[in-house]
């Protein structure tokens, strides 16, 4: 099949890749860029394991063509940590038991990020609503929404401190 040269901006880095137009974003991330954090679960838009952020919006990379997102900022779970330091959402999933087998975790982290970016102080109902379509088969979900609420609080405190310092 004819390959095309595409340019993808992933986690702040621009990559030039020769790919066939029918290549899924998920497969380009995993195979061509070695970013295996995003998972193939249901492979059919029903589980959320492949969620990445595209221009800040949570999207399912298993039903997205890579070629369609050439001008976008793509963020995967590998792009959340800054300078090797996990971000508050990742920290919270660790300490609140949000990850069990861990296979769904990257998808949950990305959806959570999108939520907290828009709404840093979500209610439990808003968390439930935002994460409604990421499937977890083993934690029990309880620890996941607890992780999200804890992360939100931590982010708010961090911002408050930053504001205090900058004053």
């Amino acid at each position, binding site marked *: 099949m004819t390959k095309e040269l595409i340019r993808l901006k992933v986690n702040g880095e621009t990559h030039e890749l020769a790919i066939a137009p029918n290549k899924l974003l998920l497969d380009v991330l995993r195979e061509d860029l070695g970013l295996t*954090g995003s998972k193939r679960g249901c492979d059919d838009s*029903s589980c959320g394991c492949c969620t990445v952020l595209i221009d800040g919006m949570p999207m399912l990379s298993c039903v997205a063509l890579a070629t369609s997102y050439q001008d976008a900022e793509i963020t995967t779970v590998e792009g959340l940590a800054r300078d090797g330091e996990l971000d508050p959402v990742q920290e919270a999933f660790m300490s609140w038991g949000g990850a*069990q087998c*861990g296979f769904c975790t990257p998808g949950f982290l990305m959806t959570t990020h999108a939520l907290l970016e828009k709404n840093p102080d979500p209610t439990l109902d808003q968390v439930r609503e935002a994460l409604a379509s990421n499937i977890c088969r*083993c934690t029990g*979900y309880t620890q996941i929404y607890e992780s999200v609420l804890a992360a939100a609080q931590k982010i708010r405190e961090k911002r408050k401190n930053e504001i205090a310092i900058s004053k």
Partner: protein
Amino acid sequence: MAEIKWPSAANRGLIGKSISRIDGPWKSSGRAKYTYDQGPAGMLYAKLVTSPYAHAKVTAIDTSRAERLPGVRAIHIFTAVGKEVNWEGHEVVGVAADTEELAEDAARLIRVEYDPQPYLVADTDAQHAGPGRFREMSPRKTGDPEQALQQADVTSEGTYGQPVITHCCHEAHGSVAEWKGDELYVWISTQNVSGLSNEYASALNIPATNVHVDCQVMGGGFGSKFAADSWGVAAAAMARKAGRPVKLMLDREVELLSAGCRPSLHAKIRVGAKRDGTLIAWDSESWGTAGMSGGGVPQLPYIIQVPNSGHRHTSIFTNIGPARAWRAPNHPQMCFLTMAALDDLAAKLNMDSLDFFLKNVGLTGERAGVYKQQMLMAADMIGWKQKWHSRGDKTPGHIKRGLGLSFHTWAGGGHMGYCRTTIHPDGSVEVATGSQDLGTGTRTVIGIVAAETLGLPLDAVRVEIGNNKYPPDGASGGSTTVGGVSSSTRTSATTALNELFAKAAPSLGTTADKLEAVGGQIRVIGDPSKSIPWKKACAKLGTTPIVAMGQRNFSLISSGVGGVQMAEVAVDIDTGIVRMEKMVAVQDCGLIIDMKTAMSQVYGACIMGTCYALYEEKIMDQQTGTCLNPNMEFYKLSGLDDIGDITVHMMTEDSYQDRGVIGLGEPPVISPGAAISNAVANAIGVRVPELPITPDRVLAALGKGGLV
């Protein structure tokens, strides 16, 4: 050497605390590499050609067009011409190629011809199945159930059932196989790291010593990932043929068609009690399918030994796909049938279900006291006495609430396994065992036990698991892992420590048996002023590390646990939609090593149970013999917002913990179906006799009467 024991409650620094899993950082950074994520250089991708028929004879296979496609490197025949396929999705041919897309194209170019054979995918009843399609198991009988039913003051009769469901692991079954000379290296999503060598060795005609298996993390197994499987062997065979590594992961459809069914179980049940609620009679006739195999014989009634009881079972052979162990094999099915039938009897007796079960708790035998205590605790947690009403919520409005309960048991125990502790002269410590972490927290538990034993912080211990180069450990099935690894770790770490004590004792002017390891110090028991730091003690080893083996140790483990669960549901009686609003789970599992991962097992079981109670079913079409929902769009699971509040309580009194470590994976997944079904019956006044409790079934049950 003194008998190896667990530290007493007062002396536990780590054991029993709520500790975050040590692999959390990999998992939440995306760095954890699952089998699906492996990609050795030059790796090929393999795809399967599977049967579109439920039952057929393969009459011709033509792979020539695929072979001519540039980039196709190997073909593997699973089902040769003349052999039969027995379910839709049964693997026939595999093909490995340079890219996944190419492998898929090649698979589509392979022509297989079939001679379709008669099939059965319905498990409705044995009569319907026809000759040769069922087997009656030998009946069991205690006392005289018929006479007891006649003598009973109150009897209840019903037909209950649940369909075949699947495991639906997030990470599909599969492996990556790579040869280096005649040594085979496989990454495989498995519950059985140490146990796969022989399967590969005999299939590929190499010594087991040449098989190297690795699985550091995996995306769920639930009982379906004990073997290399035909596709695992095929990946290795194709890798050998092609001279390049091969990745073969099942696609979602084949995962749901072929990689595991939980057997269905249906039963006609008659039960009888005296007016005061004393249970005296049980009679059941059950049937179900485990695919083409007979499956186990369910033990009915579950847990409760009714004085007069009879049970007959018929296995139906269907082309629904092969059965595999599903978390607590048979128990959830047996539990649902039993608890539903008894709850219906309680309703006919006009008794509060809790009172009824408490009344008969003595029939459970040795664990009666445990169940009683747990029932009372759970009742308190959910507010049973405040919220309980007799069948049918009489409050106005279309939302009806109800309570239901169930209880369960599981053996647990500990599988055979070995652990090796190495104390290096620089003070660093490694514990290694060929076990695996399904996400349950095995890695963390091993670290906690080793660190506790050696008096070190958790991060001072390096835990190595997930590879068969380490001392072998058993398969993770039947909730036997935590017992196996915690006791082998404790034993090996204690043995290693005693060797270190022997080296350190002279400098402390004492003997090894007078020493203890606490807080990073080796010190004299009863005289903390006499101590040397861990590192200094280790320096006395010179250049040779201490290496000590340990194995599963029965003095540290036990088996047999009890648990009680209660559910509160809200049912919209106009639409039939059920929401699980609240569940409480009270669970015993002996000595708890890590409270956080232990509780996580129970939470997870509650959602898994809610999934099969309300949504899950492998839906088959008898006209075509095919499965209609081999995808996660219509193979329905609960999302986060479909789950209500879950409260977990672990029994931690000495009487439980003193028993030693017992497994926990299976038990809490047994009761949710029964508890939720009983809660629905309590809410709407009528039993929805089948799981999952879908809106059509709720409305049908209401149509036959309800809210009485």
